[in-house]
């Protein structure tokens, strides 16, 4: 290849493996190069947990201690969900603002695989920070949990996938209506009732995002139930809810993007 050849002439193409590497590497670079967001997130999460824990001890004493393991697991899932939701919805908003969403749309790959890869990277990133939060919470409270890595990772990941779907939907709404990110961030408080939904009393609530996953995660981390000890129906429900919301959220994002293109407001921030 001579120096005067253009990239077009050289025709050395990048396929999906290169795209996956490029998107994940970009996420990795930003994570390690700008750790302030992640560290800030960890501190804020721990601060609120500290308020919840010490405040709860003062107010309810032994009652809190009895349900502490459940609270820690719920709080872990909440930080995980919060990170995944905020990162994907805010990230799409930033891509719109920067004009990079438009650039991705006019590539041979389109934005779809990039968005999904970014979502996957966000989940991994959020896992790392949430595990730190979990570790500090356990140390702080002197609690122990049954931490089977495979079971915890699989169930927590599948639980968070449904939230990722909500993030995509929120991102789609941002594409259409622009500066409403702060309002959409309020949705994250909805995660608390979802995580603590009474799924045993009301089995239908299992189809809501996080609810069923939260129940399984409690059993895994508090009671020590392993992945293969859950029933096929329970696991199938978890998978169906995870991919149902992920797919649904992505469809909403695609629809919103298409509508923004029709209205001429795609990059009109």
């Amino acid at each position, binding site marked *: 290849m001579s120096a005067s050849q253009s990239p077009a002439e*050289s025709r*050395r193409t990048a396929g999906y493996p290169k795209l996956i590497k490029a998107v994940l590497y970009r996420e990795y670079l930003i994570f390690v190069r700008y750790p302030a967001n992640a560290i800030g997130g960890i501190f804020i999460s721990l601060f609120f947990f500290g308020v919840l824990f010490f405040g709860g001890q003062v107010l309810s004493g032994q009652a809190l201690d009895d349900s502490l393991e459940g609270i820690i697991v719920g709080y872990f899932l909440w930080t995980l969900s919060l990170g995944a939701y905020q990162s994907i919805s805010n990230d799409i908003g930033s891509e719109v603002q*920067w004009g990079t969403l438009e*650039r991705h749309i006019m590539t041979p790959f389109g934005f779809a695989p990039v968005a999904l890869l970014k979502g996957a990277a966000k989940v991994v990133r959020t896992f790392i920070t949430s595990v730190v939060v979990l570790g500090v919470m356990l140390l702080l409270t002197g609690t122990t949990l049954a931490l089977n890595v495979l079971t915890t990772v699989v169930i927590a990941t599948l639980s968070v996938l449904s939230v990722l779907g909500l993030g995509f939907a929120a991102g789609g709404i941002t594409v259409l209506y622009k500066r409403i990110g702060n309002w959409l961030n309020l949705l994250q408080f909805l995660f608390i009732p979802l995580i603590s939904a009474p799924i045993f009393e009301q089995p239908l609530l299992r189809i809501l995002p996080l609810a069923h996953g939260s129940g399984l995660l409690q059993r895994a981390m508090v009671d020590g139930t392993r992945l293969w000890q859950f029933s096929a129906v329970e696991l199938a429900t978890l998978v169906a809810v995870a991919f149902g919301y992920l797919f649904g959220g992505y469809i909403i994002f695609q629809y919103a993007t298409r509508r923004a*293109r*029709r209205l*001429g407001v*795609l990059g009109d921030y």
Partner: protein
Amino acid sequence: MSERLEQRGESVTPDEGRETESRAPALAVDGVSKTFGDGEDAVTAVDDVSFDIESGSIVGLLGPNGAGKTTLIKSILGMVLPDEGTVRLNGIDIRERPRAAYAQVDAMLEGARNDYWRLTVRENLRYFSTVAGVDPDAVANQHQRLLEQLELTDKADTAVRDLSRGMKQKVSLASVLAGGASIVFLDEPTLGLDVESSRTLQTELRRLATEQDITVVLSSHDMDVIETVCDRVLIMSDGTFVADDSVEELLRSTDVYGVRVVSSDFDDDLLSALQNAFEVRSVERLSPGARVEVETEGDGIYELMDWLRTRDVTPERVRTVEPGLEDLFLDLTDRAVQPTGGSLE
């Protein structure tokens, strides 16, 4: 029709998308229209626009604010879904094979960053090369050359956020060119650049068009840039083209020119009367008299001389001022805009 312009699952790889149909124009736009809103609020931003652009040419797209330039560019690129019309990039219909068509094109859009400021310059080039379907390792030499040509070598490993505005603009251009697109849309590429950087960019665009057969569609308010670098100029007003020709032909086609007159006889009354009788571009007071520039066309200079003579004004100096692209642009767009009012960009 616009529905079909949306991306859909095509069974092409980025590699296959890089094909082109031989002898097809780089860009063929046929009957593209876009109206925003409904009923009485409807505004036609682009009105049945058709044109072809040959490969390796640099075409300037001019128009006043609200003329429809950005909507046209975004309609061509599929960022805005047109109501009607077809767009072919290197012969590939963007409706029928969007992914293959998108392999031909990239764009630097006005008012957007276009790249990632938290990555370094080189990382941006590598990233946008990959998403454009080009292996960055295979074109590392080209990226290096691009960095050298845009005088970014020293900053290659600096995060874009730490660069000046002009540098950022260059990085934006570099990242657009990094993916090897054969058709490039640049919306206000010289915005924020100093004179020297702007000239470097113009030289680089010319080199890319000549040596690498890259087609450039350039939208700019900087008439000097358009006049210097473009092979052809499309002037838009009110959603449609009011001129389409080379800069030379456009300038040749206009009768409008300026006449500069210096006379010590000019006083307030005479200047006021002159402004009532002619289109006066500028007045510079002298002591005594004034220097005025009057816009005229055809034999208008004789009318001006007659007018001065009948008022006993003796011109001490008379000079004609050749029309520039800006004069022509103002003339064409004034004429076109006045009867119909503005439009949505």
